[in-house]
């Protein structure tokens, strides 16, 4: 029952933070609220016994990606509010309908598959050792290919942000 308590508290926190990210006018607040969402998601990962993923999630998202976002928000000075135009309300109505349809679809799918996938499977702790063993045996080739992807990302970012290349 402890698990249920933590699940409801932190899933509610995640949803609230995510809603604030989407609805707030101030970009800086949006980034900071996403940090809060990341932390409560990491706690949900711990509840799911994915310890390594939870740690990496905090390090990579809160520590690197969102700091990068914050840098760019500060650099570009997009702190001013977005002006509400006629197209904005149009987008809001459209977005509301899309979200409504999506949520209904989720409800239908969950209703259809409920009952399957019981909690009878053994709990596998996602420790560094277990995940690392899998990464370096069965998923070794994809793991190596991600290093190429990171290299492409580095080179791309450097080439794009050079002043002369514009």
């Amino acid at each position: 029952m402890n698990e249920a308590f933590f699940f409801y508290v932190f899933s509610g926190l995640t949803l609230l933070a995510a809603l604030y990210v989407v609805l707030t006018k101030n970009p800086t607040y949006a980034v900071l609220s996403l940090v809060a969402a990341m932390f409560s998601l990491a706690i949900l990962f711990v509840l799911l016994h994915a310890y390594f993923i939870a740690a990496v999630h905090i390090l990579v998202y809160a520590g690197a990606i969102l700091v990068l976002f914050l840098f760019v928000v500060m650099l570009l000075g997009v702190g001013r509010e977005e002006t509400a135009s006629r197209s904005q309300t149009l987008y809001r109505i459209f977005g509301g309908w899309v979200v409504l349809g999506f949520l209904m679809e989720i409800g239908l799918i969950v209703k259809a598959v409920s009952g399957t996938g019981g909690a009878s499977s053994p709990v596998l702790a996602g420790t560094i050792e277990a995940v690392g063993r899998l990464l370096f045996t069965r998923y070794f080739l994809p793991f190596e290919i991600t290093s190429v992807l990171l290299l492409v990302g580095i080179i791309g970012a450097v080439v794009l942000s050079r002043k002369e290349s514009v």
Partner: protein
Amino acid sequence: MIGLNHYLILSGCLFAIGMYGIITRRNALLMLLSVELLFNAANLSFVAYARYRGDLTGQVFVFFTMVVAACEVAIGLAVAILLYRAQETLNTDEIHSLKG
């Protein structure tokens, strides 16, 4: 008892919120931020499946998703800075130099 369905519903709600953000935001930077929400919704369902199916493959895939997200953010933010330098705005309604 918290089951797989609880996590899937949470993940679906997160995805819906992120999608709403992408549709309604007019600032390219904040659209990228909403994309991060989508990534995390997918990550959450991966981890939930890994837990309830007793298979760590889902967690390995979350690892790969994070690498892709990091690359996407690095490139996306570089493009956003270039866009701001060239157009003096990040509002996607005002950026229409690609329109014929």
